[in-house]
């Protein structure tokens, strides 16, 4: 099981981290990856200038609600296959 940590600190929250969490959860379910990935909220990943911060493995990505699909395809689904 791999955790995808989505920052919900104030800055990230204002830029739509709740929407990203919901989107990622939906995409994971749609692609049958529930046993491989779990989306977790976290308060502050310490990189507020790169909001919304999403941590996968050791890497921190900047994701926005409109780029959540792209992030999923490239970094989640892509590496799962």
């Amino acid at each position, binding site marked *: 099981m791999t955790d995808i940590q989505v920052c*919900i*600190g*104030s*800055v990230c*929250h*204002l830029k739509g981290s*709740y929407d990203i*969490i*919901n989107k990622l959860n939906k995409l994971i379910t749609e692609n049958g990856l529930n046993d491989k990935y779990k989306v*977790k*909220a*976290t*308060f*502050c990943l310490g990189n*507020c200038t790169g909001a919304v911060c999403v941590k996968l493995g050791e890497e921190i990505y900047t994701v926005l609600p409109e780029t959540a699909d792209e992030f999923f395809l490239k970094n989640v689904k892509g590496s799962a296959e």
Partner: protein
Amino acid sequence: MRKFESNVQYTKYLVNREIAKRFLAGENLQEAIEDIAETIIPGPKPMTRCCIYKERHIVGDRVKIALEPFKDGENVIKIIRSACDECPVDRFVVTEACRGCLAHKCHEVCPRGAITIVNHRAYINQELCVECGKCHEVCPFGAISDVLRPCLCSCGAKAIIIDDDKKAYIDDDKCTHCGACVYNCPFGAIVDKSFVVEILDLIKKSENNTKYKVYAIVAPAISSQFTEAKIEQVINGIEKIGFFHAVEVALGADIVSCHEAMEFAETIEERQWMTSSCCPAFVKYIEKNYPELMDHVSGTVSPMIAIARTIRQLEPDARIVFIGPCTAKKMEINEEDLKGDVDYVITFEELRAIFDAMEIDLTKCDETSLDNASYYGRLFARSGGVSEAVKQANINLGINADIQPVKCDGLDEVVKTIKIASFGKLKGNFIEGMACKCGCIGGAASISHGPKDLTEVDKYGKLSKEENSVQATRIFDLENLDLERKYKVLKDKKSI
């Protein structure tokens, strides 16, 4: 120069600032007590007491209270015996204005025959006086003064007793820790124990949040404080102290609104009426005076505990410090069923002292946003807000129960309303109880008090991104979050 509401607040501030400053400089505080007293009372003229030596002694006692380790079961509200000025105990006294008139209405009206006329002047026999106040009302010269000791006057829970030396002391069996006496004693002789040293030490030992992360959870009442700067600058300042991150307690309030709305719908038929539980002094009042009514008190934890547990769910090793206007929160965190959720509590007064000790100028700070909660979560800071929030959660969750709120603004109203409820005569089914007038923004350890603060809360509330409590909590795993209180009184009752 900062504005303080009174010199009492200013002195408390000076003591905390001096302690914080010296702690940060690595001084041995126990050895510095005398030096701190001399710094704060430089002399040569005393400010209010007989001499500077007494004033220094009192400051020394203030420092000692702040430095003494806090013991389990101790009251955070403390009387500084040396500072208690032994205010008059007799409430009604005949003053110089008495003319010794022919009518002497005072004598006629007194139901206890306590007033006699001696040498052309009225005289009150204090042994007989029951303090009904009729003489004070009828005197055409206004010659009978009504002076109730401010500590007695402020305490809605009647927890202050005057001993044989005319000094005040606190009856711990009755005290709700609301802090009204702390705020109202004109000599500053009652204080809430400060945890400034413990908190600065916690931050220091975190080694820049690498050993563990120290979270500040900030009460929504902050909106009416530190008005010289923007709230975003205050949050930036809080992080500059060394906190890893600041989180809104108002988000905990959103969680509580939803949980309490569900609790209401599920239990109201059996309970008939229930109360809120966010105000620890309100809950304490019922627990100590009407233990048989504890079944009616909401079993939902307070917003402070809800947000602390949310943070711990995501980060089990977090250390959590609550920042708010409340002295009773300092006691709440030690409740048997809540221990370990929040590490320490500091008040806005103490936060101000830390800012200044570290020379953090809020007006020059960058802006760091604080946003997770909804408008309704933020309304918990003011009287009436909890009812509004629970009502909206009730609608937004699609429950649509019939909630009829009864608002108690301040402990005096709480006392009356609970009495009415105990007779089964409550007009409504949901009591919103707040021990401080205006709600948390009127808290004993607020820096600013007043009705204008009410509009600040609403203004701040409207800035939030999330529209309602259901929206604000939608991504949290609330099903796996323990939001239930296990009140000691109820547990004891069950074990009998």
